[in-house]
């Protein structure tokens, strides 16, 4: 009984801690970055997403987090290569023979944060770019298979430039443009967007397949028509997320009040 009282007291106190204030909004959009992305580039991409989506959705607040993946092998090859063209050859091999193994221990913290957020009454949408889609798909499986179940209706994924063959077990939602190098990955979801100039509507045909893969440089660039489509797609997914139910489990109490505490 004392323990319960203490727990409830803590729950009541925490909302007033300044450090928690802006992380308690109803929506949490998380970027899961792609291959060969430095932390700085990932933060830049995350903030590009944030300025385009805004701080609220359907009159509810949104916060933006980063679930960071480091590409050890790809960066190692980069550092060891003395020949830029040879590095491209190796990268091409990597892309063509994509046998990607998700490093599960790296995912643990991500999964734990998604779970915490949902248990705290938040809805989580992960926007995954490139190899981040493998991570997020596996994270979703881990989340769904945990013994203490949570509401998976409060967790969503939107894929961008995905090399995977599904989005959280479903064929959509995602956006991959027709020039993107990622479409060369065997069994990846096909391109579903013809990239056009935002100003003229003219189909883009020669920006290069790596450039076409860039999250900030192409997908969210104001020069191309993919930006409003991605914003629209993400907002649709946010609208479909359900508030986590108020749950009181036997044994331990899991409280959801529809807001963070």
């Amino acid at each position: 009984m004392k323990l319960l009282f203490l727990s409830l007291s803590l729950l009541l106190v925490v909302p007033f801690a300044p450090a928690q204030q802006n992380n308690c909004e109803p929506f949490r959009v998380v970027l899961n970055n792609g291959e060969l992305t430095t932390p700085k580039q990932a933060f830049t991409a995350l903030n590009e997403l944030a300025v385009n989506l805004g701080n609220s959705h359907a009159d509810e607040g949104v916060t933006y987090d980063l679930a960071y993946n480091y590409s050890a092998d790809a960066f190692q090859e980069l550092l060891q290569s003395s020949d830029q063209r040879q590095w491209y050859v190796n990268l091409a091999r990597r892309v063509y023979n994509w046998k990607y193994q998700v490093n599960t221990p790296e995912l643990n913290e991500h999964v734990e944060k998604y779970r915490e957020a949902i248990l705290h009454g938040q809805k989580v949408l992960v926007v995954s770019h490139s190899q981040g889609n493998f991570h997020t798909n596996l994270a979703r499986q881990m989340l769904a298979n945990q013994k203490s179940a949570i509401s998976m209706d409060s967790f969503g994924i939107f894929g961008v430039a995905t090399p995977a063959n599904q989005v959280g077990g479903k064929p959509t939602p995602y956006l991959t443009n027709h020039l993107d190098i990622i479409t060369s990955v065997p069994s990846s979801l096909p391109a579903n967007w013809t990239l056009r100039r935002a100003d003229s509507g003219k189909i883009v045909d020669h920006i290069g397949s790596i450039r076409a893969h860039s999250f900030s440089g192409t997908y969210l660039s104001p020069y191309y028509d993919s930006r409003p489509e991605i914003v629209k797609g993400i907002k649709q997914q946010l609208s479909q997320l359900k508030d986590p139910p108020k749950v009181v489990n036997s044994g331990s109490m899991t409280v959801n009040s529809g807001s963070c505490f």
Partner: protein
Amino acid sequence: MLIRLLIILVILFVSACDEDDFDESDSPFCIPGASADAPAGAPEEVSSLTEIQGQTAAGLTGIDDNANGIRDDIDQLIEQKFSYTPEIKRAAEQEARALQQFMEATTKEAALNAAEQMARATRCTFKILSDPIRDYEKRQALSKEMEAWTVNTKERLTKYLESSQLIGGAYFMQPVEPVCD
């Protein structure tokens, strides 16, 4: 068929790098001005998007004559390119300090702390340059160039990637206000 596809892919990669409007941050190896034949281990200067050259001597820390926590070459870059308003200049300086701190981190804890500072600094830049369309080039240029100049030698790039590896798998929540120093 496989070989043909591979060749096509390679050409696509290389041609992307050769394009005038190629975004060098898309591929860290596609450094403007860097020689494709540069030997491994040799310092690689970043022939930057600006006219000035970055310091390539003095190890990781570089030279900071005015002791403001920012390398003199980065100070010069900020002065030349990112001082169009006082608040942009402050944001650029905040980014420079965070990037340098991150590059020099030697433990996971230090790298995580520095990455948190990098998250604050980046958010600060985007808070100031917040128009999705009008400010796009400005904030992208600031973010990319500050990083490129910070890691403008092989030694610095190597150390920077080591710090990045230390924080692989980390989760960063949105920084709390105030994000600007």
